[in-house]
């Protein structure tokens, strides 16, 4: 099976306190810790598992710039067979639809049976996979939390409300957006990354992809970010600023009085 995984490099929100820059039009990006978008990492692991069961190749791709090469290299170290960087100044400012348009043109130049994305990235929009599927006219499923192979199709489970699972059968080729927790992504160490340091990562731009410049980048956007602001806390918590033991005392008191604990 030929599998493509679309990945993205994002600021690691578990490692960073996100601040807004002085102009209010972006977050403060100096000194941010970046990593692979977490759901994408699960998607790559799932692709590797399927390849190891049924054979084939795993390709990872991202739309970005030179800085994004590091996540591709990390996924190569994880076990992906090849990586491609889709980079062009014309892609700058693309909204989700623009990103999906770039990916679609890349996919149409090759042949993939299965295309995976993470369920969502740093903008929390959960949109690129579904848009891509519609552009390719492939079937799509979001929030996928298990995949098993059938002949010419896949049996998948989607995460729905209350921890319930919706089981479906989906024809190939298809696009699936992968939910976190579907597997246990393997560890990637520095040594693994060094081993793939010299693997070439081809870069393709707008002319390689034969894309109409009017369909990507800032010119094509339907959604435009005006500014960022800090969420307004309607009330906010009463912050306990005492010593640790005083705070513990207070919490204990609250649990006893409010929790009905004796």
């Amino acid at each position, binding site marked *: 099976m030929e599998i493509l995984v679309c990945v993205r490099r994002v600021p690691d929100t578990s490692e960073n306190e996100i601040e807004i820059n002085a102009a209010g039009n972006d977050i403060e990006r100096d000194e941010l810790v970046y990593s692979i978008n977490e759901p994408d990492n699960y998607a790559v692991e799932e692709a590797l598992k399927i390849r190891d069961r049924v054979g084939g190749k795993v390709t990872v791709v991202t739309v970005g710039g030179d800085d994004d090469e590091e996540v591709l290299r990390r996924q190569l170290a994880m076990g992906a067979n090849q990586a491609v960087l889709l980079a062009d100044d014309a892609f700058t400012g693309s909204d989700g639809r623009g990103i999906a348009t770039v990916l679609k043109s890349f996919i149409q130049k090759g042949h993939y049976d299965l295309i995976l994305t993470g369920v969502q990235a740093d*903008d929390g929009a959960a949109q690129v996979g579904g848009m891509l599927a519609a552009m390719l006219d492939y079937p799509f499923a979001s929030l996928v939390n298990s995949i098993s192979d059938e002949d010419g199709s896949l049996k998948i489970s989607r995460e729905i409300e209350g921890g319930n699972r919706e089981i479906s059968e989906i024809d190939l080729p298809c696009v699936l957006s992968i939910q976190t927790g579907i597997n246990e992504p393997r560890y990637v160490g520095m040594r693994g990354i060094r081993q793939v340091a010299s693997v070439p990562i081809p870069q393709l731009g707008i002319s390689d992809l034969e894309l109409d410049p009017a369909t990507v980048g800032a010119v094509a956007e339907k959604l435009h*970010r005006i500014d960022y602001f800090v969420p307004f806390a309607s009330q906010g918590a009463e912050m306990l600023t005492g010593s640790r033991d005083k705070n513990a005392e207070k919490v204990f008191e*609250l649990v006893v009085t409010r929790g009905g604990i004796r």
Partner: protein
Amino acid sequence: MTNRMFAYIGHKGGIVEDSATELLAAAKAIDAVGSPTAIVTGWGPDFDVVCESLRASFPEIWKITHPSLAYANAELVRQVLVRVLPPQSILFVSHDHFGIDLSPGLSVKLNAAFASDVLAIEGVEGGSVKLVRQEFGGQVNARIRCDISSGAVINIRPGAFKIAAGPSASGTVVDKSAAVGALAARRRYLETIVAETGDVDITKHNVLISVGRGIQEKDNIAIAEELAESLGAAVSCSRPVVDAKWMEKSRQVGSSGKTVRPKVYIACGISGAFQHLAGIKGSPLLIAINKNPKAPIFQVADVGIVDDILEFLPELTNRVREARGMVVK
């Protein structure tokens, strides 16, 4: 504004989902006097009940009924909507597991804009709607201009829009089924597997010690277990803890986990993603402990402490044990 507004209504077992009035409220934020037309798909006797009950809130209801719409399969619903929606429509959909499945692809097929997980709508300006979304795990809000000149699909965050029940709209149900034609699915629904309860039923406890990513590793769960044991409470968790396989799925609180109604909820090292908060009902006393002072959980908590849970929780356990004459370790 010339765009006509619609709301796609979810339902289950003959009951309209709560999101229906939220979609109505979102539409009112764009046009206070207008009202969206409800679109609802389904099959069978339950479905007639759904259509009837929508008459109270919506002046017009388009119903589309077909045996293959008995289960809401996003691929089929998309085909229906592409056929019935007029050009330049604005469609509101709840940003739940169905809306996430449906809307991005639908927006492409309609050549409309897609705004995902919208928290607030600030109004209309020319051919655009100004709206608010969250980015970076809810740490910052972004104000977005969404071009509606060729229509839009707007996914609304569950719980973000509230509307007071107005007088009955006495709506008219219009059967649009004939406009739909043949439906074919390349993704076929088989069954739903219901979540298990697990060894501890977190929905039955008055006090929950809930751990998040801040617990850092599996062995540290014991720190929370000890506190829970000393209090006679239970340990629950947020999604990253289940993803890392540190706790069972049955302990997860959130829209994709359990809905809990405790009296006290102690969020330990939990950032406060809305999907997690959606699982906490009944307005418990919410105490948050997190070492990141900017963690979104502090916006919704009643009491907050900026501290490392790996230090704070053992201190609290000792305090509880002391007070109860238990052995302090």
